[in-house]
């Protein structure tokens, strides 16, 4: 297994290299002089001159890439044109809010998706199966920013139960924090619940027909014990690793969800950067996200290896 782990670890190096080229290449898409575009709307000549020097724009592209990647390797993702702050610092400032949102969303997705998937598999082609499939189609077809707007309309405007926007740190007031986060977390968890439901259903249908489940039933174990201890435990192995792969969906979703609910997280940072044409921040965010995704995929692979005894041997 160690060899397999090392092989997987080695395989991410060329991927990260290609990711870096892709993200560096984004800058080449800017029409005209990148320094003029990167200088923002003010186009201050001193800023343009500074960017020319900083980005080594008088050098060939390959040399510029080497300068850029050397900076990235030292944690230098560039500087925000708007706030003059290092991009990495901005990302690290905003990340805890998005991580909290992502965890809550994942908890909601698991709480809905896995029981719905189990029930659907147990009543295959029955009313629960139909209901769960309808739920999955709803989750996959609803744009999360629209769902967010509709929830604000119902729970904030009409019923007045929850705040429409804003963020309170859990360290300041946990109750207010949860009140502010419950709607965005549900909006974000909705689509992932649909994916989890579909995978759990399909994994459970396979496992329920397995010999060991038949044996457990033949031994006279209570149906619930067979379902939870024998079937679900084995069916969940691929579903758990799927959680890591859904990280991308969470980050993509957070961009719009945080915008709708005015949550000052990672997604809002991206949107603000887009509005302000703060290209260094956009580039830094994509690089950070892609690297985190590659590493999480690796962790998912390792978790799968550790959880599956057949692969371990």
């Amino acid at each position, binding site marked *: 297994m160690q060899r397999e782990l090392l092989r997987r670890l080695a395989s991410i190096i060329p991927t990260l290299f290609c990711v870096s080229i892709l993200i560096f290449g984004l800058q080449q898409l800017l029409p005209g002089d990148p320094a003029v575009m990167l200088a923002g709307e003010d186009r201050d000549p001193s800023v343009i001159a500074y960017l020319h020097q900083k980005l080594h724009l008088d050098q060939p592209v390959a040399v510029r890439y080497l300068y850029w990647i050397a900076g990235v390797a030292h944690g230098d993702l560039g500087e925000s044109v708007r706030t003059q702050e290092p991009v990495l610092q901005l990302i690290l400032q905003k990340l805890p809010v998005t991580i909290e949102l992502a965890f809550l969303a994942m908890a909601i997705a698991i709480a809905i998706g896995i029981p719905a998937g189990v029930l659907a598999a147990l009543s295959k082609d029955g009313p629960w199966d139909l209901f769960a499939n309808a739920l999955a189609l709803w989750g996959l077809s609803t*744009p999360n920013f629209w769902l967010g707007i509709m929830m604000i309309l119902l729970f904030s405007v009409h019923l007045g139960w929850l705040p429409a926007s804003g963020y309170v740190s859990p360290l300041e007031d946990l109750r207010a924090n949860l009140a502010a986060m419950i709607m965005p977390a549900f909006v974000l968890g909705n689509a992932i619940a649909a994916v989890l439901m579909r995978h759990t259903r399909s994994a459970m249908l396979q496992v329920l027909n397995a010999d060991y489940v038949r044996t457990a039933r033949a031994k006279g174990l209570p149906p619930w014990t067979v379902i939870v201890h024998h079937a679900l435990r084995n069916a969940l192995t691929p579903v758990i690793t799927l959680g890591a792969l859904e990280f991308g969906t969470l980050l993509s979703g957070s961009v719009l969800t945080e915008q709708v609910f005015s949550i000052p997280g990672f997604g809002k940072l991206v949107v603000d950067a887009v509005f302000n044409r703060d290209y260094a921040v956009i580039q830094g965010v994509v690089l950070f996200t892609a690297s985190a995704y590659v590493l999480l995929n690796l962790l998912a692979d390792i978790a799968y290896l550790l959880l599956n005894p057949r692969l371990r041997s």
Partner: protein
Amino acid sequence: MTSVDTLESSFPVAAPVGQPWYRRILRQKLAFIGLLVVILFLTVALFAPWIAALDPNATHWDAIRHAPDRMYWFGADELGRDVYARVIWGARASLLAGITSVSIALLFGVPIGMAAGLVGGWVDLLIARITDAFLACPFLILAIALAAFLGPSLTNAMIAIGISATPIFVRLTRAQVLQVKVEDYIEAARSVGNSPWRIAWRHVLPNIVAPLLVQSSLAIASAVIAEASLSFLGLGQQPPAPSWGSMLNTAKDYLDQAPWMAIFPGMSIFFLVLAFNLVGDGLRDLFDPRSRS
């Protein structure tokens, strides 16, 4: 986007024969309903000037945030523009973006995937690494970044979505080609002296169309949401041209006064995406009956 792994592992290499396709699709009731809804939206988009009586950009100062009634079926927005007309014209932007961006993804993804699968070796390895790099960037974040760097417009949004969706088609095509190229009929085609180009075009491509069709339908659903998302962020269709995403962006500031501004464009996105998802699911069941279980 739908997991490409699921498609790769579950698809047979050729569509089943027997009943004609329209009879088989009629048996898939939900997919058939989905197809009807897609046709309805296509008709609405094509005949928008005749279906919407009012100009979508005309402002009526006496109708600002007017509630839905017989004159304004879906109400009026903050500038007194007819929401019904804007929803009808918005269907054009959404369908155009969905179909064009998936066409871009197919145009690049299929030949690259076929090259990877048929040539193999270092070409396959290089393409696999580049595809991995693209897939490492979450779909919408990559589309946002590309659209931001290309500049805000519907055309650039379509290009950005198309580029972001391409790697999925590369992977799917490669996986299907690897299954097909070991079949006896490919060996037979090679043994009678067909050129590699002819084998790829005449023998491999027709046998991998089914999964590509399924993925295209699901990808259009994702592309419609992506276009709405980019327009919501101001990176897609530019005002005053109507787009469902930009209508929702404006609507969120008037929720307590004019909720209809948000309800109708959002419902349109939902029904169009649902319809493409139903068609995609139905096609998958049609081409691979195993996936039904």
